[in-house]
């Protein structure tokens, strides 16, 4: 307890005595975590958009012309049994035409040349979120297309694939950038603690001669590293919050609908930046002190 108290007091005292180099290191960590946080936030928003869009995602199964009601019922029963289908909506030829007319509005004259209703009847299938992967959806579409009475199956293949690829790409960028920034944080603290360690080398030698254990000598430096990393994380997070609120306020001003959908980190993750800063700085400090020999 006494050693911890001593280490705590010494770390605070040293942080204050060497405040400029410590502030500089803390700001370096803050900027690193702010950049990483921005990328994570962009990825989170892309993921959230993908999920939001997926809720309305479905396959449209167009049926053959003049399909008997028995066959249509059979297909409906088939889809109902499918565990990956969460909702089924039957759209008759008449309903499809009505919907098209509503969509066309005042330009319905383009349908005047048709003697009969050209639109096929169809099923709109809503799929489970887990199935919303381009490869699985494609397999599903091929499987349904083979069914008797099915003319064609359509879905937003390209859009889904692009968004999925972009999200995956962002995740990879976040992982790579995260690794680089974490190493940079550790290295930044390593350099600072190394400098501070050498500045206090005479004091450390005296401590060793007075019988201080390695832990007694190390603890203040490790605590110093943890303080710098934690503060860096807090400042980085606060900086990101400020940027988020200013940016969303501007977006809402110009695009009210889009602005409302931009999300921030959930409260349970608020400590992630300070903890990441602390852990990486602790690792940096540990290596900076190195092996203490008597």
């Amino acid at each position: 307890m006494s050693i911890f108290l001593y280490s705590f007091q010494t770390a605070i005292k040293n942080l204050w005595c060497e405040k400029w180099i410590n502030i500089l290191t803390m700001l370096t960590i803050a900027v690193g975590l702010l950049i990483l946080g921005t990328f994570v936030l962009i990825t989170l928003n892309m993921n959230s958009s993908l999920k939001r869009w997926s809720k309305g995602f479905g396959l449209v199964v167009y049926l053959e012309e003049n399909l008997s009601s028995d066959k249509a019922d059979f297909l409906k029963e088939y889809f109902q049994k499918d565990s990956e289908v969460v909702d089924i909506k039957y759209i008759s030829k008449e309903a499809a035409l009505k919907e098209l007319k509503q969509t066309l509005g005042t330009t319905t004259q383009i349908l005047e040349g048709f003697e009969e209703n050209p639109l096929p009847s169809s099923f709109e299938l809503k799929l489970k979120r887990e199935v919303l992967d381009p490869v699985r959806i494609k397999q599903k579409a091929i499987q349904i297309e083979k069914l008797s009475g099915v003319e064609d199956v359509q879905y937003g293949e390209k859009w889904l694939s692009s968004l999925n690829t972009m999200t995956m790409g962002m995740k990879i960028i976040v992982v790579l950038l995260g690794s680089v920034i974490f190493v940079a944080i550790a290295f930044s603290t390593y350099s600072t603690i190394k400098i501070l360690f050498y500045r206090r080398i005479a004091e450390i030698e005296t401590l060793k001669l007075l019988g201080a254990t390695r832990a007694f000598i190390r603890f203040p430096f490790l605590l110093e590293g943890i303080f710098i990393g934690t503060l860096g994380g807090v400042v980085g997070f606060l900086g990101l919050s400020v940027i988020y609120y200013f940016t969303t306020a501007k977006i809402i001003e110009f695009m009210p609908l889009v602005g409302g959908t931009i999300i921030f980190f959930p409260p349970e993750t608020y400590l992630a930046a300070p903890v990441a800063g602390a852990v990486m700085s602790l690792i940096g400090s540990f290596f900076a002190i190195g092996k203490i020999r008597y």
Partner: protein
Amino acid sequence: MIQFFDVSKYYGEEIALKNVTFSVKKGELFYVTGSSGAGKTTLLKLIYRAERPDEGRVLVADWDVGKLKQRTIPYLRRNTGVVFQDFRLLFNRTVSENIALALRIHGMHPEEIKEDVAEVLKDVGLKHKAHSFPQHLSGGEQQRIVIARAMVSRPTVLLADEPTGNLDPDTSSTIMKLFREINARGTTVVIATHNSGLFSGTGCRLIQLEAGEVITEGEG
């Protein structure tokens, strides 16, 4: 308490100590004398394991110093108070903080530390300087602070390297009186000095070194 058996120490080609054998009894006041460069400081360093013997054995209490593991060295040093020739005071800490550091290392409670520091400062006659910084004290006062720091943790052995080296005769006399008082309380004291005036007529045992070898073993 302290035993040297055929101890030799080399710094490259240079011989610092050669075949040194002697012993210091528990509670004894012992002198190591010799001119500058004779090996006195090296001999003391071997006792608190700042150096390792190249040949021979050094025993301090129950410790075989040459065989000590790195993690055990701090515990030997806690039992061995050292009055360093260059003081080794921390100039960014006050007098009481410098002394308290030795007790902090022992893991003592802050309240106990406060009491012990006040007591030892009273013993060395510098209670009024508790909140001063070492650089504002005279050489003699700094020396007494170093003695206080070495003594505060009540070590079984006290080593002093040229404790009166830069001091005037009056201050030297005060410092030596302090060592005798410490010794009278039962602490084994080893003083390395080139000043024969310190031990003449005291009747204390001593060894005289020259070029790293013991040339005389006798009494002051």
